[in-house]
Structures are given as C-alpha cells and as structure tokens.
C-alpha cells in the first residue's frame, strides 16, 4: 500500500463556507397539514366515481321528491277520467294510470315516501341499535351475554317476518312502517357497535377518562360512540336501501301505505293486473326503485371503502 496523502480537508479555507440564511419558516409550516380521519375519508370518497355518481343521484332524487310535486300542475290523487291509461306524453310525462291519475307525480310522491321511510327507519335503528349495542359492549360480562343472546335469537329468523307480524298488529299505514322497520332492523347496528366498543373500551383514553372521574354515560356518549362513527355510518348507509326495499316489498303485498297515497311498491303492485294493457305503469315505478337502490348501493360501497380502507375488496 502506497502512502496516499490525506489531503484536502485542511486545505479548504474557512472563507469558502457561507452560512445559509436563517430559516424563516418553522417545521410545522413546511410539513403538510395533518389529514384528519374524516378529511381522509372524504378525499377517498371523492376519488370513487361510482360512489359520487350515487351521491349526486340521491341528491337529485331528494330534490325531485321535495320540489317535484310542488311544481307539477297535477296532484297525486287528481283523476282525469277522460285520460285513463295513457302512455307517456307531453302533459303527463310518465302517462296516466288506469284511474286516470298522473303517474309522474305519483312516482315523485313514491320517492317522498321511500326516502322518508329510509330516513326515519334508519334514524330509529340508529338510536335503538347504537344504545343497545353501546350498553351491551360497555357493560360486558353477563349483561352483554344476555343482551347479545337475545339479538342472536331474533337474528335466526328473517327480519321481514317480524316486520310483517308487526304490520299485522299495528295495521297498515306510513307510521306503522316507520315503527315496524325501526323496531326490527336495529339488530345489525347493535352487533356492529358492540363489537367496536369491546375493543375501544380497553384503550388508554377510556382509562384516562375513567381516572378523571367521568361517568359511564359520559364515557359512552362522549368517548366511545364518537369513535364508532365510521362503522355506524357504513351500517346506516347499508340499511337505508334495505328499509326502502322492505317498504316497497310490504306495499307490494298490500301491507304498506294506504290508498290514495302512492309508494313505489303500491304503484308496482297496482300495475300488475293491467300489465298487458299498460306496461308503462310498471316500468316507471320499477325504474325509480332500481335507480334509487343502485345509487344507495354505490354510495354505501364507496363509504365503506372510504371509511374503512381495510375492508376494501
């Protein structure tokens, strides 16, 4: 090995170094703003084209349902006796039914009922289900065991059967549907919330809250439930189309809203006897149900992917 002169280090004079200007910005300003869970979810949702399409469709349907009947010159029970069973035309966009009522307005009224059923039933199952699951999860032990066995027992029979029985007891009508759906469909929500709370309640922030003397109710409502919002929203978004579908199903069987009100199930069932002569009477309500269900399904899938990326398929 020959001698390699260790040179260079000493030969650079100090004046060759110039200090950088002092940093004006703090580290916090340079780093990206921290993304919250909800901001992140919203960003993911916006990237999902089908989910956004579903959301815009739902908004459009909601607007139509609210404004449509006000703007239309006809009412849902007006009869035009000289124009029975007309096909789609300029004055009656979707045609008229066999009693001469304007189908467009009736379909819009159906949208009102379906959306109201979806909303109210899911609000009811939200409160009942979240409370039930929350209490079971937080209480744990024997209470949890008994409460969840009850849910399991209900679960082994199709829920529609209970809804039908409820409808038989409280009689047909819009309020009965709200009640029956709300009282029956909370089971899934209870399961979801309980599972979440079982894992959450072992975490340190709950211990900290408890150490600070927070009551059980405060821990449940202020600490645990807000942290379950993701799964809760996913479950609600999956339950809304289910509620809408069940209402249509019940009305189709004649257990739903009473005449002359028009829900989509009623319209489809009315169209059945006259299907040979007036196929348009079936087509429009059927299309309305299908489009709404599709939109809610897309939005629900999108929300699930956005709020819980681990579940992404």
């Amino acid at each position, binding site marked *: 090995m020959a001698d390699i002169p260790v040179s260079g280090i000493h030969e650079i004079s100090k004046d060759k170094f110039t200090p950088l200007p002092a940093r004006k910005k703090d580290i916090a300003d340079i780093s990206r703003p921290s993304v919250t869970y909800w901001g992140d979810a919203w960003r993911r949702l916006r990237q999902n084209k089908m989910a956004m399409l579903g959301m815009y469709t739902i908004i459009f349907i909601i607007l139509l349902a609210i404004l449509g009947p006000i703007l239309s010159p006809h009412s849902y029970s007006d009869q035009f006796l000289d124009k029975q069973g007309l096909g789609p035309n300029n004055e009656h966009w979707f045609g008229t039914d066999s009693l001469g009522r304007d189908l467009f307005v009736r379909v819009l009224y159906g949208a009102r009922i379906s959306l109201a059923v979806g909303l109210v039933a899911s609000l009811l199952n939200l409160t009942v289900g979240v409370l039930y699951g929350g209490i079971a999860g937080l209480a744990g032990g024997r209470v949890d065991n008994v409460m969840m066995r009850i849910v399991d*027992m209900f679960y*082994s*029979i*199709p829920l*529609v*059967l209970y809804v*039908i*029985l*409820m409808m*038989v*007891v409280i009689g047909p009508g819009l309020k009965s549907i709200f009640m029956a759906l709300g009282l029956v469909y909370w089971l899934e929500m209870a399961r979801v919330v309980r599972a979440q709370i079982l894992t959450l309640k072992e975490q340190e922030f709950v211990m900290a809250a408890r150490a600070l003397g927070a009551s059980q109710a405060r821990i449940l409502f202020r600490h645990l439930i807000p942290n379950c919002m993701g799964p809760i929203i996913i479950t609600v978004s999956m339950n809304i*189309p289910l509620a809408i*579908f069940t209402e*249509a*199903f019940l009305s*189709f*069987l*004649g*257990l739903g809203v009473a005449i002359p009100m028009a829900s989509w*199930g009623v319209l*489809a*069932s009315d*169209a*059945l006897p006259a*299907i*040979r002569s007036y*196929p348009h009477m*079936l087509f429009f309500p*059927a299309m309305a*149900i*299908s489009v709404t*269900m*599709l939109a809610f*399904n897309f939005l629900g899938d999108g929300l699930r992917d956005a709020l819980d990326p681990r579940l992404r*398929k």
Partner: protein
Amino acid sequence: MVTIWMVVTITFFLMHAIPGGPFTREKALPPAVMKNIEERYHLNDPLWKQYTDYIQNLVRGDLGPSFKYQGVTVNQIIAESFPISAQLGLASLFIMLFVGLPAGIISALRQTKWQDHLAMSLATVGVAVPNFVVATLLMYIVGVKLGWLPTARWLSWQSVIMPSIALAGYYTAYVARLTRSSVLEVLQQDYIRTARAKGLPERVVVYKHALKNALIPIVTYLGPILAGILTGSFVIEKIFAIPGLGEHFVASIWNRDYTVILGVTVFYATLLVIVNLIVDILYCFIDPRIRLGK
C-alpha cells in the same frame, strides 16, 4: 329450541294483541252464534290457558284448525302447499349455485378483463333490482310478449322457470360477488404460491387448492340466503299465482286467519333453525380447523 319457543310466544301474543278477530264482520253476528264460535275455537278461555293449550298441541305437532277455512287444519295447509314452495326454493338454490358460483369464479380468475366487468356489472344490477320488479318484467317480456312460458299457475315443469329465476336473481348476484372476493383473497395466500412454486398445473391450483378454501365463507351465508328465498317467495308466489306456502301466508294475513299465521311462522322458524344447524355441521366438515363444542 329456545328460538322456536320465543318465536311462538312473541307471535302468539302479537296475534292476540290485535283488535278485531277473524270472525269480526261488518254486520255483527248474533251473540249466540258468536258465543258458539268462541266456544268451538276456545277463544273464550283465559289467555294463559289458550297459550298453554297451544304449546301442548305444538309439542305433539298439531298446529290447530284454520279459522277461515272450515274443517281444514293448519297441518293440512302446510302439507299441501309446502312441497310446491320447496320445489321453487330448490330450483332457485340450483340456479344460484350453478350460475352465481361459476360467475364469481370466472370473474375472479379473469380479474379486470371483460368477463369480470360483465359479470360484476350484472351482479351490481342484480343486487339493486327488487325481486318483484324482476318477476313482473320477466312475466311481461317472456310470458306476455314472447309467450314462451306460462305466466301463472303451477301446472307443468315450465311453470318453475320464471319464478325461480326471479327468486334467485338477487342471491345469484350476491353469491357471485361474494365468490369473487373470496377467490381473490384465497389466491393471494402463501399456500397458493407454494402450490404454483412446486410446479402444479394452474388447473389443479385453482380447483384443488383455491376453490375449496374460497367456498368456506359462502357456506356460512347459506342460512341467510335460505331465509331470504323464503321471504322472497311471498311476493313471487303472489305474482305468479303459485299455490305455495308463501301465498297462503300472505292470504292468511289478509284473512286474519291467526292460527295459520302462527302455524306458518312456527313452521318457518323451525325450518330455519334446522337449516342453520345443518350449515354449522357442514361448516365443520368443510373446514377442519373449526371444531364443534369447546
């Protein structure tokens, strides 16, 4: 057992909570006739006695007489109409398995190719469109416009085709989606890589290693699927005027025929509990990792 007992109790008391009965007419019956009727069906007994009587009869397998149709028992109604519903249900299960499963498998194996996109778009539509819409559209297009198949009644083997397609529609789509995601997940497992690494032909990897494991989650959904086919039959049988059990159930609701409502509900509950039990046992056979008991 507990589930069945609970269903019986809930249904029983719900049925008795309804104001008005099957013998309430617009024109009131003479009190003497009313009394005789009540006597005959034991409606004037105290509620708890009616309940214990019913449970006792139920244990012996007797579901009581129909209120609406004189001289017909609920057992006769079920015995007469259930075979028809069972045929319809089995045909739907058949469609579901032989259309839904292959569709899911194909779209998983051809992921992001046109087969996948086609199958999954169809499945998405299938999940969104309610069964009564499918049924009425089928009836209108195939039955009325084309005249290929009979539109109603239960007369020949051809009558099975349309109702079972309509009934199976949703679940076929559902199974296809489930199968697809399940197969995709299994294909990413290490043992699949091992199987490929030791040079097995793709056919063996897919059929022998992947599918067997991918089917496990689908078996667990058999219970809910059967429950759905059951409730779906209410609507489908009404549309196609099929004299099955679902049609009788809906009719009994209209007629306020409480013993029939009660009896059919109990029958459905028992059926589903048994099916769930079978599925649980089946599950242990398919997946040796799971053992019954503790």
